[in-house]
């Protein structure tokens, strides 16, 4: 119980936190769960106080004092009334807990989807996230942008969860509970974040070597910011003649087998879409920040940041690395 109280301190903060506590909810499903958790905590806490109190009393009161006393205490073999009492009371508690929990399950899981909802298809990959916005024609990666939803005009985001390979799990604790992404199965999850900012989370189902660095960032944007982001993402890739050498490397090496840059010959789907690479704050699913130096090192040897990542080291020389980094740095 102390454990929970300790974590509860974080509940007084609003908006996104560096520590993604489940006691600092910022979206309806997370808030409902938070309320349920307080209810369950108070019941289990009361049970603990009563039973542990009785036990502590028994230990103190009935411990043997002095070794010389060898007489045996009165032998009591049982009592039907007492057994019935401590069967019936737990039954009642279970009924209350079950009904409360069931109501919450239906409220969250079967919530009707409003017309204003944004659809995003999330595809889990070893070890990164693909976010497709089917109605907006956007293919984003690792950093999910969603609009702020205010209670008067709710614009929740409905996530359709799929997997390209093994089982993953989408978990941003401040926004909602987690939901798994399975191959050959469609799962759903919804959020309606009510404070703007960046919410962190990560993959919560072991999915291979770099499960730990399959981090999640959810950007909750004000309507204006979100519109600006959408507008940028819908552009074709920037085409800059000054970095043609880098682009040639990208298109003649194996890069294009796995990566897409819209408007070019590169249409690979195995790795992240790089059309707007530099619009993202992080690289390698959050393993490091997105700066040209980190980008160069990531291309030179992905194992520096993410040992076991599926992107191979391409064995490029220094000049090629510089040119390629220069090209990728223009993809805003």
């Amino acid at each position: 119980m102390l454990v929970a109280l300790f974590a509860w301190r974080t509940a007084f903060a609003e908006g996104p936190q560096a520590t993604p506590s489940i006691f600092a909810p910022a979206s309806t499903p997370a808030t409902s769960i938070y309320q349920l958790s307080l209810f369950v905590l108070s019941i289990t806490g009361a049970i603990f106080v009563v039973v542990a109190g009785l036990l502590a009393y028994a230990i103190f009161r009935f411990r043997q004092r002095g070794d010389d006393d060898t007489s045996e205490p009165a032998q009591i073999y049982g009592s039907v009334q007492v057994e019935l009492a401590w069967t019936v009371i737990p039954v009642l508690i279970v009924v209350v807990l079950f009904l409360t929990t069931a109501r919450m399950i239906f409220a969250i899981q079967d919530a009707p989807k409003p017309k204003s909802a944004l659809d995003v298809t999330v595809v889990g990959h070893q070890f990164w996230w693909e976010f497709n916005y089917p109605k907006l024609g956007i293919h984003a990666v690792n950093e999910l942008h969603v609009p702020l939803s205010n209670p008067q005009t709710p614009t929740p985001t409905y996530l359709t969860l799929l997997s390209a390979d093994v089982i993953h799990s989408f978990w941003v604790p401040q926004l909602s509970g987690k939901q798994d992404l399975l191959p050959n199965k469609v799962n759903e999850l919804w959020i309606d974040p009510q404070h703007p900012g960046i919410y962190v989370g990560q993959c919560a189902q072991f999915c291979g070597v770099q499960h730990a660095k399959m981090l999640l960032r959810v950007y909750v944007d004000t309507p204006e910011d979100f519109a600006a982001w959408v507008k940028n993402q819908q552009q074709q890739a920037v085409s800059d003649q000054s970095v043609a050498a880098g682009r040639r490397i990208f298109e003649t090496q194996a890069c294009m087998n796995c990566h897409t840059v819209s408007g070019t010959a590169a249409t690979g789907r195995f790795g992240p879409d790089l059309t707007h690479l530099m619009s993202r704050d992080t690289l390698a699913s959050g393993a490091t920040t997105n700066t040209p130096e980190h980008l160069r090192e990531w291309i030179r040897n992905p194992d520096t940041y993410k040992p076991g990542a599926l992107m191979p080291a391409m064995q490029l020389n220094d000049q090629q690395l510089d040119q390629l980094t220069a090209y990728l740095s223009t993809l805003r």
Partner: protein
Amino acid sequence: MADSTYPIPGSLEAPPRRWSQAAILEWLNSWVITVDHKKLGILYMVYSIFFLLVGGAEAMAIRIQLVQPNMHFISPQVFNRLFTMHGTTMVFLVGMTYIFGFANYLIPLMIGARDMAFPRLNAFSFWMTFFGGLLLYYSFIGGGGLYGAGNAPDTMWWAYAPLTERAFSPGHAPDYWALSLIVTGFGTIGASVNVIATALCMRCKGMTLMRLPLFVWLNVVTSGLALITITPLTAAQVMLLIDRYFGGHFFDTQAGGSALIWAHFFWIFGHPEVYVLVLPAFAIANEVIPVFSRKAIFGYPAMVAASVAIAFVSLGVWAHHMFTIGMTSVGNAFFVLSTELVGIPTGIKIFNWLATMWGGKLRFATPMLFCTAFVVQFLLAGLTGIMLSAAPWNWQLHSSYFVIAHFHYVLVGAIVFCIFGGIYYWYPKVTGRMLSEKLGKWHFWLFVIGFHVTFDVMHIPGLLGMPRSIYTYEANRGWGTLNLIVSIGGLIQAIAVLIFAWNLIASYFKGKEAGNDPWDAWTLEWSTPSPPPVYNFATDPVVTSRRPLWDLKHPDDPDWHYE
């Protein structure tokens, strides 16, 4: 009457043994060829404790890696192997073998039999389990195979498909995992059949089912549950091997297989498995708590009924491991209800232990210390279990460190504590010598402090969003200090376990002579010499109540007046 040697203490003086090479070989050989239930019980226990130390060492490596964010103590590949091997070892090689260690040694003695029903099956079962464990650990050497990828299994102990399929796990590591679980599974099935047959057919005169010691009852229930649940596990392993070797598509999602089916197969084994492991721990507590409270167990029929009820209900709760996998709302609600129902018979057990202690004369020798701590910790583990059963909250807590803290509360706080309590209690019977009480107290207090430092604190990072099975974590998440504390607690526990290991060895040579009945206990095993002779009982005992030795010691007020 019990064995004719009772109540004369000690056994026949054996001539001093001379250690020559031939004598050592003969001694070793006697352990290999034995079909004696007591020797096999000891083998099971030695095996279980050995792997407890191995699995513990793996846990320590994991804790060192997590002591601070972005540590480089071990690589992610090694980390993933270690937590997979830690889980598999602790569940299958420690948990599943301590059961049969205690059951084999004690059931015939408690029911007044001379051996198990099928002594050769008993030996066969042990050696299957033994070689299954070796096979698992051989993967460290042989798992690389032709493809060089991975050596020991690194897919978590539940090995969710399709991560175990050839496309994602080339090499042979998952094959070792699957084969070793099939082989140890055969051992478990053999041993379970044996336990049930022995308890039903080998009871001495007067030992009706309602006079069976609760220890035996719970082991019968455990074995029945193991028989039911090992089957789907074995079936799933066979399907996995068919997928990997013969191009089957059971779990091969890229060819239309189902990842979901594996999860169902695994957890329909995996959840009852928790009860397979914990019921024998209850069995130990059911013997220790009455003896050290100096009272008969409170509500014997209720305890039997609750155990059977737990076994039945536990067969219908498996999908509470899958609340986040995408079941319908009705499906989720069903498993919330079934899971919370388990809390009722479990609560009855806790209340009965409490009532047994109530009004007694509690003697806090080491076995009782461990079993008292067990009751408190199991209560807490049950309450965090209730929290996890509330499906929406589970969507947050699932796969987080909160869950790890919860099930270590069960597996360590309940089961390992009872194993230690049981060893302190029966070691004198097995070896004829007492374990040192002084070291025992050190062991207990260090272990209980280390346990709470580790596992109480471990709940918090889960509530703060830390998922399980990650080899490192981001520095700005605020999980660093908590993980440091958890690791320090782990170290304290490790020291306690080393003291215990030393106690086991030192007391064997220097411990106080135990005599037949050092605890003034009531079940039949304490009427035999310590250690018991090969034939256990010179004449078949006859019992008239649940506590035959109580009747002997209190002829004026025997139990059968009240039962």
